[in-house]
């Protein structure tokens, strides 16, 4: 029998263009209803568990899954004012840029690209017995081989560079 997640999780997709409503602007902060009516109602009006969620302070953890700089918006706007914990799942391109924020504790956790996705699949599979197709884990062996191939090319390129330089001398 499958175990259930012990926490309530709300998946909000497609937050394009509505971050300004969500930001802790002084006016918005005083008028929680503005956030509620103009943002949360649009996205979560059918969810009972969102009834008492008016601002970031009411949330336990905000996880931003993004292929861009979106998670930093929450670290910049929501965290200093409301003290909300922020975690992120990002494409590998941004991992090097985001690591300093993990080190300072501004991100509570970070899923790094396909490797992070595969680790997460492993975690939920083992801990919560969640089944289904594991797309990231499927791609990891190809990923590792591609990395080794690129490392070999980098080494060969460097050997070639130094060989040509020595011949010129």
């Amino acid at each position, binding site marked *: 029998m499958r175990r259930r997640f012990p926490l309530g999780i709300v998946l909000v997709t*497609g937050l394009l263009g509505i971050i300004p409503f969500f930001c802790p602007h002084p006016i918005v902060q005083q008028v929680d*209803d503005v956030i509620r009516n103009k943002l949360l109602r649009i996205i979560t009006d059918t969810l009972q568990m969102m009834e008492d969620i008016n601002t970031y302070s009411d949330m336990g953890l905000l996880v931003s899954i993004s292929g861009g700089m979106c998670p930093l918006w929450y670290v910049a706007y929501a965290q200093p004012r409301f003290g909300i914990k922020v975690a992120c799942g990002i494409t590998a*391109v941004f991992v090097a840029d985001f690591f300093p*924020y993990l*080190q*300072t504790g501004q991100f509570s956790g970070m899923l*790094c*690209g396909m490797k992070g996705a595969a680790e997460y699949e492993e975690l939920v599979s083992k801990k919560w017995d969640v089944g289904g197709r594991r797309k990231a884990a499927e791609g990891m062996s190809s*990923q590792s081989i591609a990395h080794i191939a690129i490392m070999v090319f980098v080494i060969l390129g460097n050997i070639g560079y130094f060989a040509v330089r020595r011949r010129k001398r």
Partner: protein
Amino acid sequence: MNLSPDPWVWIGAILTLAILSFLYKENPFYRTAEYLFVGVSNGYFIAFMYHNVFLPVLANPLKTATIQVTKEGLSPGLFNPVNEVNFLLLIPAFIGLLYITRFIPKISWLVRIPIAFYLGYYIGLYIPTVLEASIFRQLQGTILTKGSFATTLGGIWAVIILIGVVCTVIYFFFSKEHKGTLGAASKVGIVFVMVGFGASFGYTVMARISLAIGRFLFLFKDWLGIVH
């Protein structure tokens, strides 16, 4: 081989092959797929903004306000910005419409007004938050405290980070010639910069390879059914 019967998978596969055909050279198939992608993205964005921003934030409240006026007449509540339904929404709507004046040469200067509002708003919003999140907190992360040495490994990393930050900053300090101690520190700094670039490159490669793997898995698994 177990070909997919789903027409959407076939459309996806054909478009993927059309994009990949660019590896050979630019061709009409690639261009068709590219234009389709741009068109669909734009269409999605416009529809998203229309349904999630324009209608609920501007059009519907104004419609409700107009109905209220016809039924009950004007009331002070209809000019209170705190209320969701209010006529003051016409002001930002009017300012937004000024973007269109760009197409009328005589009054095209009016476009500066919405741009000024936009820039002013975001600069005001950005400066304090970026200072807090990306400068003060990051500087705080380099400070060595007792807690930094709670574990041996943590202590070693804290010292490495401090040395890395200081030396990298010295490398970008051009007001004095990089000689002696300054020169040695800047040389250490460039090593940290290179390690940083290397890590960025590695992760970028990982991201691109992930995308390629995703596409090939789609082709060989979902479409052709060769891989199981």
